[in-house]
């Protein structure tokens, strides 16, 4: 058994307070804080201050029912179910007796109440389990004191405290109020992994019933007495801004109460990393119902003008980011030309091992291929929206946001209101994928509510949502390999960049596996705003790299698995360079597993492609089979092997992997956002293609590597590599290599 300290420093990692109605409340935080919450003081309780500071807690009712708060925003990645499972495991409670509630946001302590970077389970693995274990320890102590027996003789089983020698038993509920009076133990014992009874078993989505019966769960479902509906009118093109409005007609429309112009961000305002906003100045129409506001938007006359250059320095995560948006109306055709040009000119060294120049000079053959992908819109199925009720001294907000804490600061800055007067409630989100990291819509809602003096729900139409920016950047990469006369790989060179950022991860595989390695990077400024999109950067570079390795294997006369495994063997035994950011053995592990599950070595008649990638601390390898039917590719089977350490909720994890695969296939094959004179060509799903039911794989088989390693990311890692698997299988089926996403945009399939 491993003992683990409950404190991070002495300062109350965990504190307990008595609930007014009896029962034990344990709060837990990811980072200790010494700040005191004002509310606690006002209540005059001795020890409860941390209660208000904490970002999550569990409650035990005297009937034995346990409420576990889920601290992080739920975007479909299952944290609302799987994070409380960690608490329940160590508390040793029957999962059937657990109620899960979304925790409130508390910003007095900096906590990681973020949905992003596939980090929720990884970051909460210890603190959540400790919270459960600490509560259990206190309940045991309460029982021991009551029964006057040593605490070491008390056992627990699914919410019941047991003293075998005397035959005494009590439910957690019976001991909760006593436990609440006890000192929080400084150390607790966490379960051996082999003894887990909840972690590693499949638990159904805690919101499942509400979802299938259509109960209100999402931000868009928010309704309030006296609530108005607001919609935005934004510039028609990137590079433009609002000049003036004529609201004569719009104001006369039925149900319309206000027409106004807002600055979501003002010039002298401190801008945070997640304040990315394409159009800080907008026209807004407010009315009684959504349909009325939609009609009035059409009647609003707006004059636009060219936007000046925008340059801002943002400090975040200990770094400085320069955001630059040049003047002009941009076009996709120009983007492609510019990327091709810059790719061969304005490059910066990112990593160099050995002597790549010499290797390429001495090469018998050089293979060079270039890859690209377009901008993408996130297109969460629930369009951006937020509820705000701002009065003189208080701001109440509610809705879908991946970064509630960061946005609380933005609101505070914009409204000049202290943080403690701002309350942001998190709703279940109809998708995130990175889009809702950037909460400008929440600031917009707050500003509108303040201006009109009423509670308001800001609602984006799909068109507003799709043309509002924060896109996945456009990327471009060129790979070169030097082969000697014996077909040995003697040099490797990658040049990658994009608009406005580079997708290069210079220290990832195959860095470390090749003696002479060169990685170079570049970027081009743009006024089209971009942001994180499911597995940022990896979502392109994985597919490009894995397609190139496939072609390289063919040129070298090797099986594509063998080439990868040989390179990984070298990286494992004799790594080149020092900063290789992957574990070659785990990488090889997923490849070997999927080789087996897909029967790669015996099923040689199929059109199949393999691909593997490592990101967000997890390893994924995939094999994809497809056939051409009626001149169109039809995906048949996908085999996937994942190493993300311990799997907390296997069926939900499998669902997430399946979804990542379907989503990845869709974006590689169909999705694209293009521009003419700064205007997005696609504004709704009639022109913007997302993968549909009939285009999804027929079967997806997911296997997890059995592991004792602490859990790592899962929301993002299955997404990037599948794009390479699609490209490689397409080649097998058609004999043509596909270098440019979306693949279905090629002449071959357009016919």
């Amino acid at each position, binding site marked *: 058994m491993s003992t683990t300290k409950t404190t991070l420093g002495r300062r109350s990692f965990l504190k307990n307070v008595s609930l007014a109605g009896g029962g034990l409340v344990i709060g837990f935080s990811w980072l200790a804080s010494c700040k005191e919450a004002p509310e606690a003081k006002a209540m005059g309780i001795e020890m409860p201050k941390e209660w208000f500071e904490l970002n999550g807690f569990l409650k035990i009712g005297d009937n034995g029912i346990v409420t576990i708060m889920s601290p992080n925003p*739920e*975007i*479909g*990645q299952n944290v609302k179910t799987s994070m409380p499972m960690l608490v329940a495991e160590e508390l040793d409670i029957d999962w059937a007796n657990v109620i899960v509630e979304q925790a409130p946001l508390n910003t007095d302590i900096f906590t990681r109440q973020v949905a992003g970077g596939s980090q929720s389970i990884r970051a909460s693995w210890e603190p959540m389990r400790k919270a459960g274990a600490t509560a259990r320890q206190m309940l045991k102590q309460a029982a021991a004191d009551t029964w006057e027996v040593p605490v070491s003789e008390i056992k627990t089983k699914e919410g019941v405290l047991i003293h075998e020698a005397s035959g005494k038993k009590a439910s957690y509920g019976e001991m909760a109020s006593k436990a609440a009076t006890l000192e929080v133990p400084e150390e607790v014992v966490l379960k051996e992994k082999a003894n887990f009874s909840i972690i590693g078993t*499949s638990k*159904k*989505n805690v*919101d*499942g*019933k509400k*979802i*299938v*019966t*259509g*109960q*209100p769960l*999402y931000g*868009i*479902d928010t*309704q309030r007495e006296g609530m108005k509906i607001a919609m935005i009118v934004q510039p028609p093109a990137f590079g433009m801004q609002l000049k003036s409005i004529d609201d004569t007609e719009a104001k006369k429309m*039925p149900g319309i109460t206000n027409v106004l112009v807002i600055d979501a961000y003002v010039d002298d305002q401190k801008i945070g990393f997640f304040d990315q906003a394409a159009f800080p100045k907008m026209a807004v129409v407010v009315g009684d*119902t*959504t*349909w*009325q506001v*939609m*009609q009035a938007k059409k009647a609003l006359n707006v004059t636009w003008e060219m936007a000046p250059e925008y340059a801002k320095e943002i400090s975040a995560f200990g770094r400085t980011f320069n955001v630059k948006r040049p003047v002009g109306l941009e076009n996709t055709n120009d983007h492609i030309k510019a990327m091709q040009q810059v790719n061969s000119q304005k490059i910066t060294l990112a990593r160099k091992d050995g002597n790549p120049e010499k290797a390429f000079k001495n090469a018998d053959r050089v293979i060079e291929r270039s890859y690209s992908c377009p901008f993408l819109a996130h297109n*969460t*199925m*629930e*369009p951006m929206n937020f509820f705000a009720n701002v009065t003189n001294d208080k701001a109440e907000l509610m809705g879908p946001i991946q970064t509630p804490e960061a946005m609380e600061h933005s609101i505070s800055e914009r409204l000049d209101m202290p943080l403690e007067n701002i309350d942001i409630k998190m709703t*279940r*989100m*109809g*998708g*995130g*994928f990175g889009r809702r990291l950037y909460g400008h819509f929440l600031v917009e809602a707050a500003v509108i509510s303040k201006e009109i003096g009423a509670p308001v729900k800001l609602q984006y*139409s*799909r068109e507003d949502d799709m043309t509002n920016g924060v896109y996945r950047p456009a990327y471009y990469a060129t790979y070169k390999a030097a082969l000697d006369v014996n077909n040995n790989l003697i040099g490797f060179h990658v040049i990658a960049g994009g608009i406005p950022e580079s997708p290069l991860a210079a220290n990832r595989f195959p860095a470390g596996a090749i003696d002479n390695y060169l990685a170079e990077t570049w970027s081009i400024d743009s006024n089209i705003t971009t942001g994180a999109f499911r597995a940022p950067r990896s979502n392109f570079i994985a597919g490009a790299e894995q397609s190139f390795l496939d072609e390289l294997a063919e040129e070298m006369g090797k099986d594509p698995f063998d080439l990868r495994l040989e390179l990984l063997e070298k990286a494992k035994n004799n790594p080149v360079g020092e900063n290789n950011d992957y574990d070659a053995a785990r990488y090889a592990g997923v490849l070997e597993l999927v080789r087996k599950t897909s029967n790669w070595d015996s099923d040689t008649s199929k059109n199949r492609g393999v691909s593997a990638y490592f990101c967000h601390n997890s390893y994924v390898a995939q094999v994809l089979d497809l056939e051409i039917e009626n001149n169109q590719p039809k995906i048949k089977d996908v085999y996937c092997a994942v190493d993300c350490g311990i799997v907390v909720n296997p*069926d*939900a994890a499998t*669902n*997430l992997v*399946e*979804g990542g*695969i*379907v*989503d990845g296939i*869709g974006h590689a094959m169909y999705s694209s956002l293009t521009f003419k004179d700064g205007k997005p060509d696609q504004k*709704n*799903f*009639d022109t913007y293609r*997302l993968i*549909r*039911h009939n*285009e*999804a*794989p*027929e*079967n997806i088989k997911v296997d997890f590597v059995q592991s004792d390693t602490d859990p790592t990311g899962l929301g993002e890692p299955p997404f990037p590599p599948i794009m390479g698997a699609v490209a490689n299988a397409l080649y097998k089926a058609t004999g043509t290599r596909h270098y440019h996403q979306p693949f279905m945009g090629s002449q071959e399939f357009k016919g």
Partner: protein
Amino acid sequence: MATYNLKINGKKHQVDVDESTPLLWVLRDHLGMVGTKFGCGVAQCGACTVHIDGNATRSCVTPVSVASEYTITTIEGISENGDHPVQKAWIEHDVPQCGYCQAGQIMSATALLKNNPSPTDEDIDNAMSGNICRCGTYTRIKKAIKTASNTNLS
């Protein structure tokens, strides 16, 4: 503005709205029935699917003036206690990720199974391809429909 009498989930409702107002917004804004979701507004995503006289219909493009002539069923009305075989199959397969598209998916699936209790894969593809799921739950949706197709549908 005009007054419309609507038959929704076996109950009568009266609303006073412009005749062009789509049923979607009557449900959501006027009647507080928010189970039916807004996704695109142009009949492309299926999030707003309801049954009109038993047929899967995009409520975002169905004016209230048309809808008022028929019997309407929404996600809130397909079962009393959330125990319609399709709802049960959805839970059994733990289909939802974010869950936002699922009301529409379920409404399309229930309409399909009502007319065609044993659909082929192709039938399912045809009936379900108007419903987008960005989370990519399509393979589970297909499995859940098959599970529900073997049960007795009333």
